[in-house]
């Protein structure tokens, strides 16, 4: 059934905007009410899922504690701490290896836990994009539709978010 099928995606996305689970639940409920009222305006060319998440984002933004404007692309956020490069731009402090540990089941579980925290700690706009793309598996086009952002914005946010997640794993598991 529809409510069951989308509930996890909706709660996760709502949690990007609101301070706690209870408010996220309210947003999701509110979304369903909006869906019921807006069923007539459902556009068949967008997928049900995309449409639903779009309504959710609008509701959640209204309910969210933070007012957030579109991403200021000019705010430079490097993928890697610039102090890790020397004056010529080459690695002075290269990435600590951790890939081999992925094959150890217990460590992989710890990595998943660490990632969950790292995703939660991302700035909201990065968290939205990373959640939709890498956890929900939406395409970049769908993410742009859901969040009403340009493809370039989507990619910048994805880049920053993924870079932070990689750094979180390196910091915890690198060189071990």
């Amino acid at each position: 059934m529809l409510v069951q099928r989308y509930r996890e995606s909706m709660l996760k996305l709502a949690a990007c905007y609101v301070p706690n689970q209870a408010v996220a639940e309210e947003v999701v409920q509110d979304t369903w009410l909006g869906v019921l009222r807006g069923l007539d305006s459902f556009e068949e060319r967008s997928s049900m899922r995309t449409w639903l998440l779009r309504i959710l984002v609008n509701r959640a933004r209204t309910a969210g504690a933070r007012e957030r404007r579109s991403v200021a692309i000019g705010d430079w956020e490097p993928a890697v701490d610039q102090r890790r490069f020397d004056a010529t731009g080459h690695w002075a402090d290269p990435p600590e290896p951790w890939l081999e540990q992925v094959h150890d089941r217990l460590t992989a579980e710890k990595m998943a836990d660490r990632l969950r925290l790292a995703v939660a700690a991302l700035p909201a706009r990065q968290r939205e994009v990373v959640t939709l793309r890498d956890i929900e598996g939406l395409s970049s086009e769908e993410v742009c539709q859901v969040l009403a952002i340009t493809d370039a914005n989507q990619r910048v946010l994805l880049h920053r978010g993924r870079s932070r997640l990689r750094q979180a794993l390196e910091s915890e598991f690198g060189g071990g």
Partner: protein
Amino acid sequence: MSLRIRLRRRDVVCRQAVELVTGYLEGTLGRADRRRFESHLAGCPHCTEYLAQMRATIHLTGRITPEDLTPAMRQDFIALYRRWHAERGDQSGSGGSA
């Protein structure tokens, strides 16, 4: 002299390479940038490691599953679903079936 400057400007250094990773993985780099990125990787084990770590990060992130609903939330959803169903029934029943 001028040749060396031009070459240096065209070469990608590590600091730039890490910023090209997402565009590379998304397939949105232009042909020239992609070639520069790949030729940098060919000579740079650190950036090759970095790219592999980004790929692994994406893969691991894809395995995150949401926590289960709490019983209270489950109750709410069931209630919501029933209400939704009831409201829809009312509308399509046009005037209530008494």
